[in-house]
Structures are given as C-alpha cells and as structure tokens.
C-alpha cells in the first residue's frame, strides 16, 4: 500500500462521514447504546463476581477441639491440618479469644458475657481456610477424621447452596453478555448497511472500473473504526460518570462491596472502547461483502 493511498483512504472515510452525516450519527448512536448496555452488563457481572468471591472467601471450617488436650497435642493437630491438601491457612483460636470475639459481636459494652454465663463454655478451635472455597466440604471430611477434634462446622448445607447459586450467576451473566454482543453486532451491521446501501452505485462503479476489494474496503473500515470508537467513547463517558457517582454514594446506598479498583475499571473501559471499534469493523465487514460481489 502506498502512503498516497493511506491519505486517500483517510480522506475518503472522513468525506463520507460528513457527507452521510445523518447515517453516521445514527450508527454512532447505535454503537453508543449497544456499548452502554454491554458495559452496564459487564459492570454488573464484575460486581456480582466480586460479591460471589467475597461470599465464598468467607467460607471457612471451624474445627472444635476436645477440652482435655495438652499443648503439644494441639500443635500436632495443627500439623495434621496443614498437611491436608488444599488447605491455605490454619489459625488457632483459644477459648479466651473465642469468648472475647463473642463478647464483641453480641455483648457489646452493655453486659459482660463471662459474668452472665459464669464460666467460659467455648472450646479451643482452629479456623481453616481452603485454597479454593469450593473444596471446603471435602476438606471438612478429612478434618473430622483427626483425633482430638470433636466437631467440624462450615455452614453445612448453606455453603453447598451458595456455591450452586454463584455458579449459576456466573454462567447466566456470561451467556447474557455473549448474547448482547451478538445483538450489538447485528444492530450495528444493520445500521451500517443503510450507509453502504446509499453508496452502492459508487461501489458498483468502482468494481467495474477495476478497483480491488481492499481498495474499496479500507475507507469503509476506517469509517467503521471511527464510528465504533466514537460510539464506544460516548458510552464509556456516560458509564464512567454513572458508576463514579454510584461509588461516591455507595456508603449511603449499599451494604454491598462495589468494585472500585481503578486498574480493573480502566481495563473495563478500554476493553469497551476496543469493543466499539471492533463492532464497527465487524458490522462494516458483514454489510459490505454483499455489495462487493460484482
């Protein structure tokens, strides 16, 4: 490709953009709306994912120890626990510590649990976290087998249901996003087809004069990239403004943890921008090929 052609392609692309102003605006709006919906779904998915991770990471095994164990027996048990595959951390909680926690959680400053109960009814325990929270039920079975542990608790039943729900949420949101992308491609291709249809005579003429397909395609692709990126940019600005204000009001609005990591968010926005440009090109490609078949 000669440098002269690149200039020609750019000039043709922008001439066409301004000549078919109404259709260009229609296409940019279509992309903007598509990306806005898509971006909304992505942010929703990311936050749902973060919430799921948060809920899942909360899942832990509490192993209650017999009360008559010696110090060295307690350390041995810790070694046995650490040896189980898939265990991330093992944390000892003494009876005193357990009571203090309980006091903090339920007693507050109003009344003293220890005095009310007369004695400390709580056993020593280990809190066990798994590398992958999904393995908690299997690990719990192993933990139960260890001598000196009289009870294992991980929210049996509830945890299994939680995992079912989180898997479902993840699958549904992925399927939803894929469907959205398909709908966006279709919608954008349809709008771009109108713009190309308006120039079908010119394309036909170019073909008969002996222009190559790529020579005809390039200006349309540049136009598609530009319109896609412009639409994407508009959508991102709206999305970022909306989400930004949501984050700043979050404390007042929600008990849910919103994703605020600027690294993740800027990745989302950049991906959406690229997605807009790609949609523009894809829509152009789909719509244009039919007209090149002369």
């Amino acid at each position, binding site marked *: 490709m000669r440098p002269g052609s690149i200039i020609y392609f750019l000039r043709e692309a922008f001439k066409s953009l301004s000549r078919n102003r109404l259709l260009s605006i229609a296409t940019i709006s279509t992309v903007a709306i598509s990306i806005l919906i898509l971006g909304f779904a992505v942010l929703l998915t990311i936050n749902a994912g973060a919430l799921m991770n948060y809920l899942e990471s909360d899942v832990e095994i509490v192993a209650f120890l017999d009360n008559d164990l010696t110090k060295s027996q307690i350390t041995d048990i810790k070694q046995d626990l650490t040896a189980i595959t898939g265990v991330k951390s093992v944390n000892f909680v003494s009876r005193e510590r357990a009571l203090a926690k309980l006091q903090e959680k339920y007693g507050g400053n109003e009344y003293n649990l220890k005095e009310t109960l007369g004695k400390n009814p709580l056993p020593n325990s280990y809190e066990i976290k798994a590398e992958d929270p999904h393995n908690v039920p299997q690990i719990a079975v192993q933990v139960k087998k260890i001598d000196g542990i009289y009870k294992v608790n991980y929210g049996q039943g509830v945890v299994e249901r939680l995992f079912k729900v989180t898997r479902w949420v993840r699958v549904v949101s992925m399927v939803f996003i894929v469907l959205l992308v398909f709908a966006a491609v279709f919608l954008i291709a349809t709008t771009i087809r109108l713009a190309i249809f308006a120039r079908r*005579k010119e394309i036909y*003429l170019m073909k008969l004069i*002996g222009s190559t397909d790529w020579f005809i395609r390039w200006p349309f692709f540049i136009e598609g990239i530009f319109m896609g990126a412009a639409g994407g940019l508009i959508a991102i600005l709206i999305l970022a403004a909306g989400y930004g204000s949501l984050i700043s009001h979050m404390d007042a609005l929600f008990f849910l943890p919103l994703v605020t990591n600027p690294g993740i968010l800027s990745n989302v926005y950049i991906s959406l921008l690229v997605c807009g440009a790609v949609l523009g090109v894809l829509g152009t490609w789909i719509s244009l090929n039919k007209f090149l078949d002369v």
Partner: protein
Amino acid sequence: MLVQFYNVSKIYPNGVKALDDISLKIDRGEFLFLMGPSGAGKSTLVKMLFREELPTRGQIFLASRSIVRMKRGEVPRLRRNIGIVFQDFKLLENKTVYENIAFAMEVVNASSKEIKERVTEVINMVGLKGKEKSFPGELSGGEQQRVGIARALANRPLLLIADEPTGNLDIDTSNEIMELLFNINRTGTTVIMATHARELVKSAGKRVLMLEQGKIVADTPPGEIAL
C-alpha cells in the same frame, strides 16, 4: 485476436436463456456494433467481457487470457483493460467533471501526477475543456456522456464497451457521440457498441453483429450494408 467466444451459453438463475451457443472473434482495432431486438442478449454478451456475468457454458478469452477460468483476484486487472460507457452515464453527482474522471484513476491506484496529466488529456479529447469544475447536474445529456467516455478512456483501455451510449440522447447529440467513438477507434482502441439505433449503424459502415433470442443471426463485415 482481442476477443474470442467459444460456444458460449448463458442461462440466468431464473431459467432465461440469454445467450445460446455464441462463437465470435473480434480483432484488435475493430469497431463492432451489436444489434438486435430488446431481450436478444446484447447486454448479457458485453457483461461477460468484464465478468459481471459468467457464462453457463463455453469459453471467453480477452487478449488470450481466459475470463472464465480467471480467479476472483485477477478480475480487477481484467477490468482495468476495459473501459465501460453506460446508457445512463453513471456519473457521481457530488463530484465535478474533473473528479469523476480522476475517480477512475484513483480507484486503480494511479499517482496524482499521472492523474493530473491524463485527466486533462482526456477532457480535451472528448471536447469538454472549460467544464472541469462543472457538476454533472449542470451539463447536457451529451456532455454528461462525454464525461462518461472520458472516464472510460482514462486508464487507456484495450477495449471500450458501450451499451446503448446514445439511448438517452437526441439524434444530433447521438451523431456527435458516434463521431467521438469513431475517433477513439481510429487511435487504435477496439470498440464494441450495443445499440438500437439503426440509422447510426447504417451510415457507419462498420461490422454489425445481429442477435436474436441469444443467437447470432447475421455477422456483416464492414463496408457491406447490414439490415
């Protein structure tokens, strides 16, 4: 030989048999009229030459290269050797005379220097000097067809194809356009022209190919009176 047709038939997808076993040779430098009633297959025949339509059966050669077996990617090169003049001119309304002609060279990737020289040259050739900046809407039919011819000539084609180039023009203007085509033919370009205009053909004394229902019914050499 510039053009060779060997037993070419064309059946359109709707079942219409537009060409029926056509064999034909055209020499370099010839001027050929294609005549025949409406629906005889004249347009179909010329469309085969620039591969807008492919034959259902038979072989076609241009300058000894098979048009039928040619790959899709080779079609642009074939078309750059052929200039096409249309009945309805097919000018781009939003481009000036100059730009319409330059367009034909731009789309085949000519340099801007070549374009400037050649466009000026063909504008003079078709007698449109001074109209460079006019838009098609500001020109008469005859002038618009001159632009169409200039555009077809811009890339120095071996073969000029004109499908009813005078179909939309009055008799005087048609005669002027014919004169222009004869002049172009005199400089060595082979011309194939499909037409209904008997009077133009009669007075021209060129080779006339008569089509009826997709068959050649007469092939009259130059100098003899056809019809």
